[in-house]
């Protein structure tokens, strides 16, 4: 207990002595966390939107002949061989006609005299509604096109491709902002700790001479890094929450443009971001003291 009191006292003293660089580091960590968590929030919500849009997603494979049950089994087998799917439905010519008739409703009389087998038989493939399935849909479609007896494959190509491109872009941005987060937190914290180490070099040498343990010397610096990471992450997430509330308020109300359900992070995600930032800052701090104190 006394150890931690001493460590805390040393940490506070260190941070007060270098308060300017501490402030800069906190600002940088907060900003990095804000940028990263902003894009991550957009990404997570985009995934939810994708899942909802995926409810209507299906691939319609038009066939030149209505497949007999053994052939249906073969098709099913070949489709499942490529990818896992939610379900597969075989639509015969007559079933397709009935469905079309139902869609036409009151205007179904236009079909008078038209043979009931004029529509091609088809297979409706419902992919699993995950982002990975969405990203593979183009390849899935190309594969289905190669199956024997297939005339044409249709799916909501345009929006899926745009959506997928957006998700891909978000992934790249998250990777970049994540790298920014890692670099800034690690390097900035390491730099600040190095400044503190330089400022206290004489004292650290003396501490060794009077019998301080390695832990006694290094722990205040690790705690300093952890505090910078933790406080910085809390500030960054706090700023994001303010931004989120502001955006929600701006688009609230009956006259406003309806936004898809946009949710803030759950507590486990918040805890993970704070934990990650703290860990990175401790790593930065550790690298600085290891180099400087030769532990």
């Amino acid at each position, binding site marked *: 207990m006394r*150890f931690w009191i001493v460590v805390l006292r040393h940490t506070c003293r260190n941070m007060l002595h270098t308060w300017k660089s501490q402030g800069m580091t906190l600002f940088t960590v907060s900003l990095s966390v804000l940028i990263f968590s902003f894009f991550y929030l957009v990404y997570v919500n985009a995934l939810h939107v994708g899942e909802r849009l995926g409810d209507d997603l299906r691939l319609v494979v038009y066939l030149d002949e209505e497949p007999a049950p053994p052939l249906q089994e073969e098709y099913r087998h070949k489709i499942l061989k490529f990818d896992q799917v939610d379900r597969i439905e075989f639509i015969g010519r007559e079933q397709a006609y009935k469905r079309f008739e139902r869609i036409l409703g009151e205007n179904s009389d236009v079909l008078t005299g038209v043979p009931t087998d004029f529509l091609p038989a088809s297979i409706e493939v419902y992919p699993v509604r995950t982002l990975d399935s969405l990203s593979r849909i183009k390849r899935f479609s190309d594969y289905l096109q190669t199956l024997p007896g297939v005339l044409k494959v249709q799916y909501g190509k345009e929006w899926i491709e745009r959506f997928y491109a957006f998700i891909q872009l978000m992934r790249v941005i998250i990777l970049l902002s994540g790298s920014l987060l890692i670099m800034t937190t690690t390097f900035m914290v390491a730099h600040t700790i190095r400044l503190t180490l330089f400022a206290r070099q004489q004292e650290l040498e003396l501490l060794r001479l009077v*019998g301080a343990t390695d832990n*006694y010397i290094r722990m205040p610096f690790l705690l300093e890094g952890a505090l910078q990471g933790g406080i910085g992450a809390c500030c960054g997430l706090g700023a994001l929450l303010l931004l989120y509330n502001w955006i929600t308020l701006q688009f609230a109300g009956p006259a406003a443009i309806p936004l898809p359900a946009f949710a803030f992070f759950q507590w486990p995600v918040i805890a993970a971001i704070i934990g990650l930032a703290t860990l990175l800052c401790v790593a930065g701090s550790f690298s600085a003291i290891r180099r400087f104190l030769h532990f």
Partner: protein
Amino acid sequence: MIDLIKVSKAYPPDVQAIADVSLTVTRGEIVFLTGMSGAGKTTLLRLISRMEKPTKGMVDVAGMDVIKLPQSSIHLLRRKVGMAYQDFKLLPERTVADNIAIAMEVVYRPRSFIEKRTRELLELLDLTRKYNTRAGELSRGEQQRVSIARAVANGPEIVLADEPTGNLDAETTARVMALFEQLHRKGATLIIATHDRSLFEDTPHRVIELRFGRVLSRSEAGKDDGPAPFEAPPALFEETGA
């Protein structure tokens, strides 16, 4: 308590600071190390406190093989050895009290104990008024006394003092020596490196003279039953748990 066996220390390119020195200091003994500047007194003390490693030989302090002592265990040795440095090694921006307290903080002494002990030591060394003065503002003599106070603050088993009275007047020298005698009576082992002959002229303790890194002469320790040659003020060291 302290054993040096055929210890040599050379600095690059070819400075032989210590050459084949063998020395045994028993528990509770006071030994004066003397010799001219550059004789190897400071190097010997630095070897004992593991501030340096010898080029060859063996150094054993309080049952610890100092050479083989891993980095992570050096604190165990340093807690047994209090050293007053020739260059004082004070933190000039910190107060006198902080400079003394640092030695007690690392062994997790309670704040109340640290404050009491610091005041006690400052009173003994006639520095009471300097409690809150920054160490950088002190005279060299005062700095020397603060360095000594820090060395003895934890009541170490071994005290190494490197020219402890080099900047002091006769009266203050007597105070410092009285402090050392007090520690000696409490069972501490002291090695005092000095070229001030007045400190050991009539001493009953052992005097070892170094020259060019070698032991030149050894005077046998006299019988140490009588009163100490330096008069110690009363109640110098109360039982404070140090």
